[in-house]
């Protein structure tokens, strides 16, 4: 794909092709996220959204995208979170997702992230291979995490030593959890978990 380009978009959200991104992510989705979910990420962390476009097409077709956030996790470690990742069908198997995620990790590292988290469906071997090749580990399994009844794994990557000893605001929590699950963690599969709480967050 000599014509592909990976671009970090300028922070102005007006330039993000939100509807294309939304269409790409929602493709395999039985219940789509409202526009607010996209706005939530793109307005607050536009720099952590990376897209790959095919410059060989007249309309610069969207080939892949990743949407992330970065904030302090319960007053403790600075946690990056990879919320959604998708690659258009014809562009799969070319390492686009890996490149985009790497870009996001690099920027999060630069922005002083201590750790990066995400969730993926337990049957989604491709996503796990991708993230594990980047250094993520499955830290725990989440029973029936998605509305379709499938379980998930939480994947974590520590970027600095001593992350486990950074105190958080709440009750001792040996894992830490973002608990909010809008993960589109793969090129092919994407699932949602509306209203799925985590005991670690809600006591």
């Amino acid at each position: 794909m000599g014509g592909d380009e990976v671009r970090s978009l300028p922070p102005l959200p007006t330039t993000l092709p939100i509807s294309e991104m939304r269409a790409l992510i929602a493709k395999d989705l039985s219940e789509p996220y409202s526009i607010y979910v996209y706005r939530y990420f793109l307005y607050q962390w536009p720099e952590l959204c990376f897209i790959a476009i095919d410059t060989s097409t007249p309309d610069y077709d969207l080939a892949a995208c990743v949407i992330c956030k970065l904030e302090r996790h319960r007053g403790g470690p600075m946690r990056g979170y990879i919320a959604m990742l998708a690659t258009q069908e014809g562009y799969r198997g070319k390492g686009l997702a890996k490149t985009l995620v790497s870009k996001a990790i690099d920027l999060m590292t630069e922005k002083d992230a201590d750790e990066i988290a995400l969730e993926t469906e337990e049957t989604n071997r491709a996503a796990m291979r991708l993230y594990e090749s980047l250094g993520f580990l499955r830290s725990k399994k989440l029973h029936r995490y998605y509305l379709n009844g499938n379980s998930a794994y939480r994947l974590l990557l520590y970027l600095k030593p001593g992350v486990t000893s950074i105190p958080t605001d709440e009750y001792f929590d040996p894992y830490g959890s973002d608990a909010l699950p809008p993960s589109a963690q793969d090129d092919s599969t994407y699932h949602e978990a509306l209203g799925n709480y985590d005991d670690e967050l809600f006591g």
Partner: protein
Amino acid sequence: MQYNRPARNVQGVLMSSTMDMTDITKAFTEASDALGEGELVKDADFTLFESVGALEIMDPKMDSGFLQPGETLYDNFNVSAPLTAEQVVWVMDELFCYEMAWHKGYALLETLYTSVHLDNLLHQELSRARKARKATKSNKSAKDVSIDDVCFRAECETDQAGTEPTQIMLIHLVLRAYCLGLLKCCDLTIRIITSQMYHEEEDFVSQTFNRDLLSEHDTQEIYGFIQSAYRWLGSTGASSIPDKVRAALKDRLFIRQDFLGALEATIPDSNAWRPNRFGAWRDLQRFASDVGSQQQIGQPVLAAFSEKIQRRFSSNTPPRPIFKLTYREAHRDFDHMLESIGEACQLYELPKTSDCALSLLRYVWAFADKSPATLPRAIMQTVLFTEGQVCGRLDFPFERLLRIDLRELVLAGHPLISKSTIDAETSSDPGFRLRQLLDDFIKAAYEPYFKMYEALCQNRCRIRRRLTHIIGEFDSLQDEAKLIDRKVHTITTPESSQGRWPETDSNYPLHSWVSHHKHAMTQWVLQLGFEHDIYEPDELGIMYSVLSQVQAAQLDSNLRIGHFAKLRYTSVPDVDSYERVICGISCELNTVLGREFAVTSSLTGLLKTLYGFLDSLGTLSASSRRYGSAQRRFELRMKALQGCTSETFDFDTLNNGLRPDRGLVDDNFQNWNAVIESTLKELQEVHENISDQPVFRSSKEQWKKQDQLLLETVRQISERFRFLREACKDAGITMIGEGSLKGKVDVIIPPPGTHRIHDWWVVPEVIFTRAVNDVQDHKHSS
């Protein structure tokens, strides 16, 4: 995109004299026009959760009330319309499938609430309840608004003049009775589950979406309906129905009635007469299993279920896809559920199990090992935690279980529970002070101990997550235990009795007890990690090393506990006394535990060696990872064990310990073979020559099964070593650390489930690389 909305006089529509309203449309439009595209206006409390919860109106995927042009909100299915007997059987079976899907964790909206018949009954119940409330308010008799009102009513009554009486009875008596029974079963299920610890959405959705599942009606009333329907099916009025179909209808009513009865008897706070609960569930399982294996004879009435019904419910979630199991799957789940409930209720029949805390814990683990559904897990909690009635025994508070646990593990023959301590009356009596100290400890230990049992009644993922928290609580308790132990020590070791405990300095019974449970839980957390398949192939060796370290600590603590148990046993002067018996049991229990720890420790050691060896042969090296480091990843792994502060897990030490000793490959194999042989022998003997004390009796069957699995695992490990020996010979590798099997041999980690003998013991498959290619070629060509 612009929408042209019809102009509407908002004030005209909504204003009333009691309201003071301002039309903000103009201000709102102006303000939003001033925003740039994509700009988000939110307060600090607007989280990702809120944004995920937002719905877009007029989007058919999100707005459940959205109708396509020409679409109606209702399907035109008349609930009073006649159905054939075969069709009624089909409707019942469909309802059953949806009910099981609900038990699996799907919401009522996407399962049972798709039934037009149930929807109709629930609607009638809603108006009945409304009428009843009105009647009560106006002090009128509520007699006329009984459950008789909860019947099928079509939107517009159809002329049933030409309908056969049999068909009318099939709908209005048989199907109605079945539906009422089903709704009541759901009501009781919700009551049982929500009375215990479970996770909403994850395990079970208890939401009824503002419908009342006959909660105000007594089970007996519903029974009455089911029985009349059953009687009618046996009468001449139903003689036109073919025998086979009639029998099928009767079977379904029968199962419904028994399910209802068994649930009613299991309700934690019900005053209902409780016949043999275990028997009730077991009989139901037998019968349901028979019915489930019969051929299906129903004839579909597809229109009796509609996806549209959920649109009329107020819900903050988008329309959900309907989830359904097949009839076979539903019966399989039901069977599994009933079996687990039977196991939980069997504790009512096995009072001796709760006489031994260790047996009970083992029993609960065996129950949890089969991943029971939410209802059985809630029933197990009811059996264990009903106030003052552990396992249905009168006057048996949960605290007593904790005291039994302490006694059998560390306190038998100890002054803390001696008769003189129990009888001490005056505060000057040292026994009085001892009793206070033990009470202090019980008070502190009660909650973490309770939580440990409660955790085992959660789903498998939650067990691991909860235990990581509880380990921390036991860790904190350990300091307190030590403090109390010291105080006890100063009271119990006056000059005169110093000779009795020559090593009192290391005799900290309460501390040892906490340590025992903490180490046990730490092992479970690690083992569940293997079961949940969270470790990568190149981590398995080090994770078994960590497990091995915890087991060594456990064994060490067991030896100490056992040593003092023996000392106390031999120091009981009266060989026929009760105290001597109690001490004898404690000694034997600790001996059995010691043997179990030793044998599992050997097994862990073997796996550690196997993975270490595979690594030294270059067959486990993972592809490079772009970010992080091995240390960081290990740090992440150890987060789950962070609560266990008494252990330090050092990456370098553990990692170095994995490497096999340098030297001849053949010498190492000989050593490993010797370990395999001794482990097999240990396993054959671990539960031999155990006395027939009632406390051991209930565990014997489980031991047998468990030991068999472990034996097979060791044999499998032995095969792997044999294979590697041959492979090394073929490749000319004679010295450890010299030469690699990379590219010659492939290591495959079997996934949990059916591919492992035991999910906790991951024995890798080792095959020649050529064979992998052959397998792939074969797959390709086929």
